[in-house]
């Protein structure tokens, strides 16, 4: 559906995106995840046709829309876009905003489409309102309905939830996923929030300093990060230094099972990989963040190394308590 090949983007002398390639299948939902300023929004704007790349190609439905020679106008790409600031037209009502991209406005079919979409986003009674009389969440829904109305081939979402509060964000994210799947529309989302990415996307690309670090499912990113940047950005965890002893890898918490890897310098220890028990490496609890079903504790080893561990919410822990740590599993992710 969407295919991006070797995309490079630059503003003047400043290269913001280097050699990015990925693809999204029909009906799939992709996500570009990365810290702010990593170039993810620029990629989105290039797909929409607002940026001309320095190099690379963009294909929509196997049709070349952007390359060195081709630059199809944004209005001819059959894409929908939801903007960070929603960009609703303040001179139009909600219903007029939603029908804006429809060809034959006023016809029965287009009116039915507007009503269907407003119902889908739960705004059926507010069609005659103007955008300034809506809350942030409501504006978000209208923006989504407006982008979906002309049945685009691909929907682009630029940090669509960043202006909303936390609770609303999570419920909206799963609603958006349901709507996209219902309409069968492929989508590409850009965000810096991994919870959002995990909630919506089938596949996620982690972007850092304009380069695609890894492209894969949420599980793949969490369990098999390609490098230490992805490991640090996705999920919580600690990178511990490694050394070799008689052909086997060791870290401060004990020996590891990974035998076939030749070159590595650190291993990724997720909080759930460590057990707190009666024997093992001695450590002291530094801080506790109680989260109900479980607690996230920061512990310090004797050499000063700090790491995060997860323990059951009912387990009694307190700051300053001496504990002993062992590894839960031995096939940790090793990284260069």
């Amino acid at each position, binding site marked *: 559906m969407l295919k991006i090949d070797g995309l490079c983007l630059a503003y003047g002398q400043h290269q913001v995106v280097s050699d990015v390639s990925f693809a999204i299948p029909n009906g799939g939902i992709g996500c570009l995840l990365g810290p702010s300023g990593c170039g993810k929004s620029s990629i989105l704007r290039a797909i*929409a046709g607002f940026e001309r790349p320095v190099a690379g190609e963009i294909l929509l439905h196997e049709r070349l829309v952007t390359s060195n020679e081709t630059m199809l106008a944004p209005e001819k790409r059959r894409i929908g876009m939801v*903007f*960070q600031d929603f*960009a609703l037209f303040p001179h139009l009502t909600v219903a007029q905003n939603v029908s804006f991209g429809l060809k034959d406005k006023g016809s029965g079919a287009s009116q039915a489409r507007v009503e269907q979409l407003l119902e889908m986003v739960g705004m059926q009674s507010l069609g005659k309102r103007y955008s300034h009389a809506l809350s942030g969440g409501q504006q978000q829904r209208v923006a989504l309905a407006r982008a979906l109305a002309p049945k685009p081939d691909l929907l682009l979402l630029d940090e669509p939830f960043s202006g909303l509060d936390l609770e609303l964000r999570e419920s909206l994210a799963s609603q958006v996923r349901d709507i996209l799947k219902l309409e069968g529309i492929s989508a590409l989302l850009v965000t810096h929030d991994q919870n959002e990415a995990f909630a919506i996307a089938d596949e996620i690309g982690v972007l850092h300093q304009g380069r695609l670090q890894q492209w894969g499912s949420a599980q793949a990113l969490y369990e098999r990060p390609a490098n230490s940047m992805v490991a640090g950005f996705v999920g919580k965890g600690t990178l511990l230094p490694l050394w070799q002893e008689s052909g086997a890898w060791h870290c401060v918490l004990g020996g590891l099972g990974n035998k076939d890897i030749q070159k590595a310098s650190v291993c990724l220890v997720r909080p759930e990989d460590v057990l707190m028990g009666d024997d093992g490496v001695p450590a002291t609890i530094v801080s506790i963040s109680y989260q109900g079903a479980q607690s996230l504790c920061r512990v310090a080893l004797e050499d000063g190394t700090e790491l995060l561990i997860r323990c059951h919410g009912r387990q009694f822990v307190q700051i300053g308590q001496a504990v002993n740590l062992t590894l839960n599993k031995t096939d940790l992710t090793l990284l260069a």
Partner: protein
Amino acid sequence: MLTIGPALVLALPVLVVLLSLLQPQWQVWQHLAETVLSDYVKNSLILAFGVGAGTLVLGTCLAWCCHHYEFWGRRPLQWLLLLPLAMPAYIIAYSYTGLLDFAGPLQTALREVFGWGYGDYWFPEIRSLHGAILMLVLVLYPYVFMLAKTAFREQSQSLLEVSRVAGLSPFAHFVKVAVPLARPAILTGTALAMMEALADYGTVQYFGISTFTTGIFRTWFGLGNGLAAAQLSALLCSFVLLLLLLERWSRRKVRYFHLGGQHQVKRVPASGFKALWLWLFCALPVTLGFLLPVCMLIHWAWLTAEGHWNSRFLALAWNSFSLAALAALVILLVALIFAYARRLSASRWVHAPVTLVAMGYAIPGTVIAVGTMVPLVWFDKTLDALMQSWLGISTGLLLSGTVFALILAYAVRFLAVALHQVEAGLERIKPSMDQAGRTLGLSPQGVLTRIHLPLLTPSLLGALLLVFVDVLKELPATLILRPFNFDTLAIRAYEMASDERLADAALPALTILLVGIFPVIILSRAIEKATSMETADA
């Protein structure tokens, strides 16, 4: 590149004035220095600083009363306090001269009540430097009032609470916290009022005070030395430049001093004598700066209506309105080109020229007129001489003394007004709206007609109206540059007043004033709207 050309044309008058310094007119300067130059400098400075101090104190105190207290009649007064903005300074000067004259209503009443005769009593002379300062303060304080009130409103309510908890009285809070925090806004307003005071021609000319503006006139028409007039203009510009720097500097500070937080204003209810005092204090500037002079004008207009309300007056009004409308349209068009060029390009070569010519509002009309006249006359003479020698025909005066010269001068002075409106309107159309339109199937032209046009229309109309009224009120540039025998309402009022026929000046003056009220209403509505939107957000 698009902006450099038009910007250069608009910068031409000021450039000419500055370049005139390269050809010093020593003889004229020596003469001026021996006779009147020190008066020009002294009077202009006293006028500017007097008006600055007056507007600063009056505007700030009024703003605080309307911001801090709730009293009977506060809402209408807050609106009425803006009305003197509609009053051109020369018109208020004419009204007060008539009011306070020996034969005017006030002195006549005093004589009748106390049985005094001529020379029995002392009465302040309004046609003096002090009088001019008073006149200008009465019509210019709204600049400070408006900006200070906005600044006070943006101060968080909790600041006052912090002060009170720390043991400060409300008055101490006003002096020690509110005013220092609003200082950039107050100084911006004061600088604007001082620029207007330096630019004033009508009032000082009528009161017979020698300032730079009247001096430039006299040098040009009396001594017949255009170059020396331009050099005097350059000297005046250097004073203005200082004010402009002060204004720019404080505007930049406004941003730093802007504090977020809750904007909901909790006014302190005042009652009894306190409310009465507040009411009187706020009603006084409205009465003196608007109601009283308007009554005087209406009285005169009523007396003279028979002789003036005729086809000649209609022709006069038509001259004024058509000139103002044409100028407004041209200036709006230029502002649109500049605003879009700035929106579409990030290049410094596009932005800098526009920023530069947008400072024209600070240049006195007299200076712009001189700066426009000199190059246009030169152009006409050169072309005429060339045509005479080549083809033996005389082209005469092509540009100078035409509507073209007038509109060029107006554009230099009032472009900033239109540009500000258009850019404020464009700012509300976020780039993402353009992009949303494109992804929804609009071509670039479609974005312009279906998104920009409907959203910009109010700003465009506002710009037209503001420039229209400004042109209508403008006196010195029109006086110098107008085509032969081309009279406008402002010119007629000026001429009648100069002939000591104040009553005959009333009808044109009143017409200007009535039209001038419209933008003030729009302005106060815009402020009201901004306020109500903020409270809705909070």
